[in-house]
C-alpha cells in the first residue's frame, strides 16, 4: 500500500495519512457492566481480515473510513464518516 484514495482529496501518498484503529460500536457506559466496558476499552479483533478503520488525511485534517485487508495491505474502499453513519443503521457490530 503506497497510495490511498482520500474521499476528499483523491489519491495521496500513504505517508500523508494517520491510522486511528478499527471502527467499533461503543456500549452505553451508563448501562454496561465493568466487564463489558473493559472489553470495549482494551480488547481488539487482532486477527487478519477485512476491517473498517478510521484514518485521517493529516494535511487537511479530514477524517474518513477505509475498508482494508490487513493480510494483504490493500485498501478495498474509502468513504466519508457521514456515509459510515448511514451504513451503521444497518450494521451489526461483531460481538
Amino acid at each position, binding site marked *: 500500500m503506497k497510495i490511498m484514495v482520500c474521499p476528499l482529496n483523491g489519491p495521496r501518498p500513504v*505517508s500523508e495519512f*494517520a*491510522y486511528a*484503529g*478499527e471502527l467499533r460500536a461503543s456500549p452505553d457506559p451508563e448501562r454496561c457492566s465493568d*466487564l463489558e466496558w*473493559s*472489553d470495549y*476499552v*482494551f*480488547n*481488539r*479483533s*487482532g*486477527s*487478519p481480515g477485512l*476491517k473498517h*478503520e478510521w484514518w485521517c488525511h493529516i494535511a487537511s485534517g479530514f477524517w474518513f473510513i477505509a475498508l482494508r485487508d*490487513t*493480510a*494483504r*495491505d490493500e485498501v478495498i474502499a474509502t468513504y466519508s464518516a457521514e456515509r459510515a453513519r448511514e451504513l451503521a443503521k444497518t450494521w451489526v457490530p461483531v460481538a
Partner: protein
Amino acid sequence: MFRRPGRLAAAYDVVIIGGGGHGLAAAYYLARDHGITRVAVLEKGYIGGGNTGRNTTIIRSNYLTPEGVRFYDESVRLWRDLSEDFDLNLFYSTRGHYTLAHTDAAMRTMRWRAEVNRHFGVESEAVDADAVKRGVPMIDLTCGGHAPIVGALYHAPGAIARHDAVAWGYGRGADLRGVEIHQETKVTGIEVRAGRVVGVRTDRGNIATERVLCAVAGSTPTLLDMVGLRSPIYVHPLQAMVSEPVKPWLDPIIVSGSLHVYVSQTARGELVMGASLDPYELHQARSTLDFMESLSAHMLELFPFLSEVKVNRQWAGLSDMTPDFAPIMGKTPIEGFYLDAGWGTWGFKATPVCGKTMSATVATGRNHPLIEGFGFDRFAHYRLTGEKGAASVGH
C-alpha cells in the same frame, strides 16, 4: 541440529504451538527441569525463521516496573550460562547499553529507571553527555543541531547474541531429551470441551492433549480465535535493517527513543539497526522504503560519518502489541491453554526466562511468581503493568 521426526503421535502430554525461541525454550526446560518429555513442538515454518531470527538481538534488563526489572534480570542471568548449557557458541557479548536522552523530560525517565533498576540490584546509572562521548567517541552529541544529547541511561549488562543459534541450542537440547520438533506443521484448530483443552488439529493430523502452550508472536490473535478468547493484542510489523560490514568502531549498544533508532555492531562488523513499529495494523512482513529512508536519516544525525556506508538487507517481523507494553503470560480462562504472548517488540531478551517460567507454569498448573504481573485477566480488572516508558523507542 536435530531429528526430523516422522508422523505425529496420537497424543502428547504437552503440545507447544510455535517453534521460535520461546516455544523451544519452554520445551527444553519442561524436559530438563520437569521431566516432561512427551512433548511436541509444532512450527508452521522452519526453526529460526520467525521473530527469533528477525529481531535486533539486544538483551537488557533496564526496565521501568518492578515486575519487569525482576523478570528481565533473571533472563540476563540465564543468558550468561546458555552457551555452556548448550555446548554451542551463542556469541553472547556484553557491550554496555546507552539509552540516549535528548530532553530534560527524557532524562527524568532515565533517572527513574536507574533508581528502580538499582533497587532490584540491576546495574544502571544516569550519565551526562560527556560520559556518552567517552563511551562512543564517534557520536555527534548535537545530532545535527536539532536534538542535542543531554545524557543517557547507561546499563552495563546490555548485551547482544546470535539469535538463530538460540533457537537451535534450545531445539537441540530439547530434541536430545526426547521432545519432538515438527516443522512445517500448521495448527488449524484447538479442541476445547467444557472449558478444557482436549486436542489440537493440524494439517498433518489430529493430536489428543490436555495442555497446550501457545507461543506464536504475531499469530496470537488467530490462535486465540480458535479457542474463543478475546484479547487486547494487536499486530503491527516491526522493521529492521543491516549495513555492510565495516571495521569495529561501535562497542556499546545505542538507543535513542526520540530519534527512533537502536543500533549495535555485530562481531562480523555489520550495523544492525531498528526503529519504531510500522504506523498501522498489518499482518504481513513486507519492507518499505519509507522505513529505510527515515531510519537512515536518524542514523546520520547520530553518526554523520556513515553517509557512504551501504545498507545490505532489510526485513520485518510481526509484533503482537499490548496496551501497556508488557507481555501476556500464563494461565487463561480455558483450562490447559497457556499463553506466552504479547511479546511485541521486546521478546528476544526474554527467551530464557520465558522458557523457565512457562515450563514451570505448564508443569505445575500454577502461574510462576515471576509472571504474576503479566496475567491474561489484568485488563478486565484495569490492573495494567505500564512498561511503555522502558520501550526502547517511542511507538
